[in-house]
Structure formats: C-alpha cells, structure tokens
C-alpha cells in the first residue's frame, strides 16, 4: 500500500506539472499551435490539403488536380483572422484564376506573428500593424509590409430580453436604439438596466423594462473587440480614459466573457439580461436581436449588409496611403461600428510564381469575389476605393 500511494502521489505530481506547463510550453512558439487547417480544407477540397506540403517547400511547384489550377499558378499559404475564414473558404473554392490556397484560421495575432516570421505567404488580420511591427517588418525582409483591405465587417450590439422585445413590439419599434454613450455606459456597468434615463431618451415611445443588464465581451483577443472598443474609444471620453482600445482590453468588473463569437452568442442567448457584441454575420445567422445604433449624423441605423457597406464609403477620402486606418465617424445611412479586414503581404522577396498567384487571387477576390462576400454578410470593397486597393495589390513584390 505504501508503494501504491507513493506512486499515486508521483503520478499526481507529474500530471500536475504536465498540466501546468504543457499548455504553456507551446505558447512560446506560435507555430506549435497552428494546426494544419485540416478542418477547413476538408470542407473545401481535398486537393487543397494534398497540395499543402508542396506549398511550403517549393512555392513554385504545382500539381495537376481537379480544381483546375492554371499552369503558371502556384499554391499560397496564408494564416490569420478567423473573422474572414468562411469567406476565405468560398474564395479559395471558387476563385477563377484557380489559385490553390491553404488558409490557417488561427486568429489575427497568430496571423501577424506568422507573417512576420515569414512562415506564410500572406497574413490576415482585423487590425493593422503597429508602428513597431511596421519597423520590425522593414528590418525582417528589407522592404515594406503592405496592407490590402479585402472586406468590411460590422460589430453589432446584441441582447437577450424577452420583456424588451415585447415592449418594442408594443411600441411598434423595430429595434432598440442605442448610441455610443449608452453602449459605453452599459459596458462600464454604469447603466444597469434598460429603463435608464439615457436609454429612455433615445427610445421615448418604448415602455422600457427594468431588466438587470449583464455585459458580455470576448474573452479571447479578437478583431471584433478591436473594432468595438475602437469605436467606443473614439466616441466616448470616459471610455477612452478608462478602457481604451485593442484586441484585448481591461474590461470593468461586473462584466463576463465568452470565447469567440460562439461563446458570446451562447452567453447572450442563455443569460437573461445579457448584452453582447457580435460579428454581424453571426448575429444575423443565429437570429439574435440586435440594437440600432446612432451614427455621426444622428441617424439610428439598423445593422444590415447595405448599411455596413455604406460606412466605409463616408470616410474614403480620409484613408491614408498605407491603408492603416480605423473607420470612425460614420454618418449618412452607414452603420457606425465597422472594421476592415486586411491581407498582409510583402513588397519584395517572393518567388515570381508565388507573387503572381497572390496578386491574381487578391485581384479576383476584391473584384469578382464581391457576390460571395455579400452572400456571407460581409461588405465588399467597392467604388473608388476598389481602384486604390487594386493599385496596392500591384505593389506586391514590386521592390527589389
């Protein structure tokens, strides 16, 4: 028996240590976590998976397969934001140049890390590179990292309160109207119920219920959080002072978190009184009630594919040359909480075949990929802005 407990204790100790360190050891190495994207590729095409290794070793190498890859085309390896994954998969499957892309959906942070480590051909992110990252990039490859916007997405406030739904219906109003100050108030836990005077002022006709509100945020670092907090940071002084913006911020006490859009949606749907923020596609697909938000012109805008697409149009002139921008101060008929998804590429250092494949793929995605984007509730790059983006794509591999 002595031996038994001793070995039990030994096993216990070791399994604890393994538990304590196992998860973290891989944390030092972003590559260790990047799964070979088996799930995603399975969905699209088995051939994509088969091509993967060739893509890593010899970017120019090309196999003949059922997807109809052009002779001159080569495989691409990309990694980054989960936000774009559903659309990216459609693009990969349907793109007309027939470029075979392997995309690893590991999150914006991982995408940027892998891009800067040059383990992928392109990165993908919902935030642009910081000044430090831009400087580092210059040092790493000896040329600039290029930001290429390829789609816009909105973040919408969603809630769970049958009482409020009933009250809205009684008043004949489609959605509760919020503005940046009331959203910030809810997340700062200063507005604790729907019948707060600030919300009542925006919804004079509605008999607001007194449900206690529980703000739900993303617990993982996320581009969705970046878009949401950047909007509040710009609009609300108290928010800017106390919370700021980022893909992960220091949330006030009294809020709870959910992992991923699924996690926030689960909390929002199950917890009475919950208020969450979700990627618009997710909220619409799951039929979660959304709030309309006042934009800079004082119009209450209900989130939809059209109103989201309007947002970026109103600020096109302010977008800088390097495409590192936030979409703020949206007016007109545009929904105000909007963010951009960027593809990150290099200005130099690609093999010719890889560069051509990347350019062909992106050119197609930005122009002909629009319908697929709209089907999936993303707002495509359009209008004059499309021209600027196409020019930016031409910069890939242009420097020597």
């Amino acid at each position, binding site marked *: *028996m*002595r031996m*038994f*407990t001793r070995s*039990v*204790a030994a*096993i*216990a*100790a*070791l*399994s*604890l*240590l*393994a*538990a*304590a*360190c*196992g*998860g*973290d*050891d891989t*944390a*030092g190495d972003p590559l260790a*976590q990047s799964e070979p994207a088996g799930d995603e590729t399975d969905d699209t095409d088995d051939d994509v998976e088969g091509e993967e290794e060739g893509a890593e070793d010899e970017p120019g190498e090309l196999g003949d397969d059922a997807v109809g890859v052009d002779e001159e085309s080569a495989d691409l390896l990309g990694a980054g934001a989960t936000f774009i994954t559903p659309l990216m998969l459609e693009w990969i499957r349907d793109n007309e140049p027939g470029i075979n892309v392997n995309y690893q959906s*590991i*999150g*914006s*942070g*991982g995408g940027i*890390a892998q891009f800067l480590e040059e383990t992928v051909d392109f990165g993908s992110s919902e935030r642009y590179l*910081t000044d*430090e*990252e831009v400087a*580092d990039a210059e040092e790493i490859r000896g040329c600039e990292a290029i930001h290429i916007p390829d789609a816009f997405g909105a973040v919408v406030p969603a809630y769970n309160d049958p009482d409020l739904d009933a009250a809205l219906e009684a008043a004949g109003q489609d959605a509760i109207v919020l503005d940046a100050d009331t959203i910030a108030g809810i997340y700062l836990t200063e507005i604790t119920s729907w019948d707060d005077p600030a919300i009542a002022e925006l919804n004079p006709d509605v008999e607001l219920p007194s449900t*206690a509100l*529980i703000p739900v945020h993303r*617990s*993982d*670092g*996320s581009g969705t959080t970046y878009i949401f907090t950047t909007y509040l940071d710009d609009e609300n002084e108290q928010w800017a002072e106390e919370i700021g913006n*980022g*893909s*992960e*911020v*220091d*949330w*006030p*006490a*009294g*809020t*709870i*978190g*959910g*992992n991923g859009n699924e*996690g926030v949606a*689960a*909390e929002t749907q*199950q*917890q009475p009184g919950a208020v969450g923020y979700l990627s618009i596609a997710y909220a619409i697909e799951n039929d979660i009630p959304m709030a309309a938000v006042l934009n800079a012109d004082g119009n209450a805008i209900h989130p939809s594919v059209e109103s989201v697409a309007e947002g970026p149009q109103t600020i096109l002139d302010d977008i800088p040359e390097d495409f590192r921008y936030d979409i703020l101060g949206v007016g007109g008929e545009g929904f105000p909480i909007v963010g951009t998804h960027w593809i990150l590429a290099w200005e130099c250092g690609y093999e010719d075949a890889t560069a051509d494949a990347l350019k062909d793929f992106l050119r197609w995605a930005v122009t002909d990929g629009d319908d697929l984007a709209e089907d999936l509730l993303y707002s495509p790059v359009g209008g004059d802005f499309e021209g600027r983006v196409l020019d930016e794509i031409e910069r890939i591999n242009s420097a020597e």
Partner: protein
Amino acid sequence: MSSTSTAFAPTHRGLRGSARGRRADPLFRAMLVLAASSVLLILAAMIVRTSIEASPVFASEGIFGFVTGQEWSVGTSRSEVTGTYGAFPFIYGTLKISFIAILLAVPTSIGIALFTNEVAPAWLRKPLIYTIDTLAMVPSVVYALVGLYFFRVVFWGPMGELVAGSPLGEATTFFGPPVLLASYWSAANILTIMILPIITAICRDVFAQVPADERNAAFAMGATRWEVMSRVIVPQSFSGIVGGTMLGLGRALGETLAVAVLIGSSQRWAPQLFFGGDSMTAVIANTFADAHPEAVWALLAIGVTLFFITMSVNIAARLIVARVNRRVGGSVVA
C-alpha cells in the same frame, strides 16, 4: 526464492537464466534508467524554458506584484513589457473553483466508494463501477458543452437562484445575488463531475485494502455497518483518501477547456460564488491565440505560477499525510 538471481524465478520453465539473458540485463537496466530520467529531463526543460520566457514579466512586475496585482492589462510590444500584469484574479479563481470542487467531490466520492464496496447488492456493483469509470473517459470538451448548454441552465442556475434568494444569500456576500450562468459556481460544478471518478476509484481501492480481520473484529464486537465504515474503514484509509483528493485537485487545477467555457472569463475576480470570474488555465487558453509577444510572456508567467501552486499543494498534502500518520499510528497506508 531460489539460489539463482532473484530476477529470474526458476519456477517458470520459460524464464530460466541464459547467457543472452544475462547480457540483456544491464541493457534492460540502462533502458529503465533512460525512461525514468527522461521524465526528469522533460520536466526540467519545461520549467527552465517557461521561466526564461516569462522572466521579463516577473522582472517588470516583481514576483510579489505579479501574484497580488489585480490589474491585467496587456500591451502590444514585441520587445519589452509595456502592459500591467497582475495575476491575482486568475490565481484566486483557480483556487476558488478547485477547492469548492474538492469540497463537493470528496464526500460524494467517499459515499460512492463505500456504497459500491460495502452496501450495494452484488449485482449492482459492477455496473455502477463501470458507469463511474466511463465518466472518467468523457473528454473535457464534451463536459464543457454539456455544462454550457444543459447543466448550468437546468440545474446550477436555478440552484444558485434558490441559494441567493434564501436568508443565506441575503446575509453573506459570498452566496449573494446576482446569479449568472457563467460563474465560479458553474465551473466548480463541472470540475466536481470531472474529478469524481478519479477520487472514487482511489477510495474504492484503499477501502478494499482495509484488513478483513479488523472489519470482522469490529463486527464481532457488535459494531453496526455505519460504525464499521465510519470508525474502521474511513480512518484506516485516511492517507489514501488524501492521495485521491490530491489527484482530483491536480485535475481541477489544471483543467482548462471546461473551465474556460463556464467560468465567465472576465479577467476580474468577484467575491461572490454565483458571479463570473476567471482562472489561470482559462486566461491562457482564451487569450493565447491572439496575444502580442509580451502578453505571451505574461501567460507563460501564469503557467510558471500554476506550476508552483500545484507543487506546493502536493508538498502540503504529503506533510498532512505524514503528520496524521504519526499521530494516529498504525495506518494501513502511508
């Protein structure tokens, strides 16, 4: 045993010593040493590696500051520590849910073990044991989902409402409202279910080890079943129960996915039981994928801290067992 090497019992014909066997002996010994030492090497490598990676954060916050700091606010740097990293909310959450889980699981496990060993009719024992063992094989992601979509909505939430609405909830902050579905309470409950099979299995083993003579003697002196269980079997098995508890606590401290889904992941701590909080493993799992380099160091620092917590829990358990055995004396297990 015979006059030849004790390693080769001559009673089995097929195991008679041979020249080849004798040559193989040192080789086999070397393999065993290698296997045993590989554990130590792997462990040492992990500790050294994580500690080195985490050192900038410890240097910037100080070990005490890191452990007691209440603000977790990550920076975006690739080369230096610019954020504020206080891991108290996570340490607090991990310990809180783990100890509540132990509090709930240990008495239940002892009860199950006593029932299967002593009380249950023979035909029920095997199926019951299989059921409990099956519980141990369910992957934690399944527990996470069942907890998220079913248990907390149907059981834990309403139970929390009941307690928070009772005089107990009004009198104490700990049991007070509001009741959230994502809470320490939900996380502790899922952990309870997850560690139950381990503790039960060990309790069953150690209870079965109590010498039949002692039990029979107690029965012969007129002790009831309850008296035999509570005065003979359980006290005799104390160190085994502690061992099982430690194994369960180990799983509870290290469990990641189910906790990350159920605890509320707020990166804050709350004094209440029914409110959302965060745990060490949950914050690592939740934020790692999108973390900037400096935040990764901070997450590694949490990993190192968790390592030391589990180690001290283990040492404390050994000390308890040693002390109790000295006092009680004559324990079956040590």
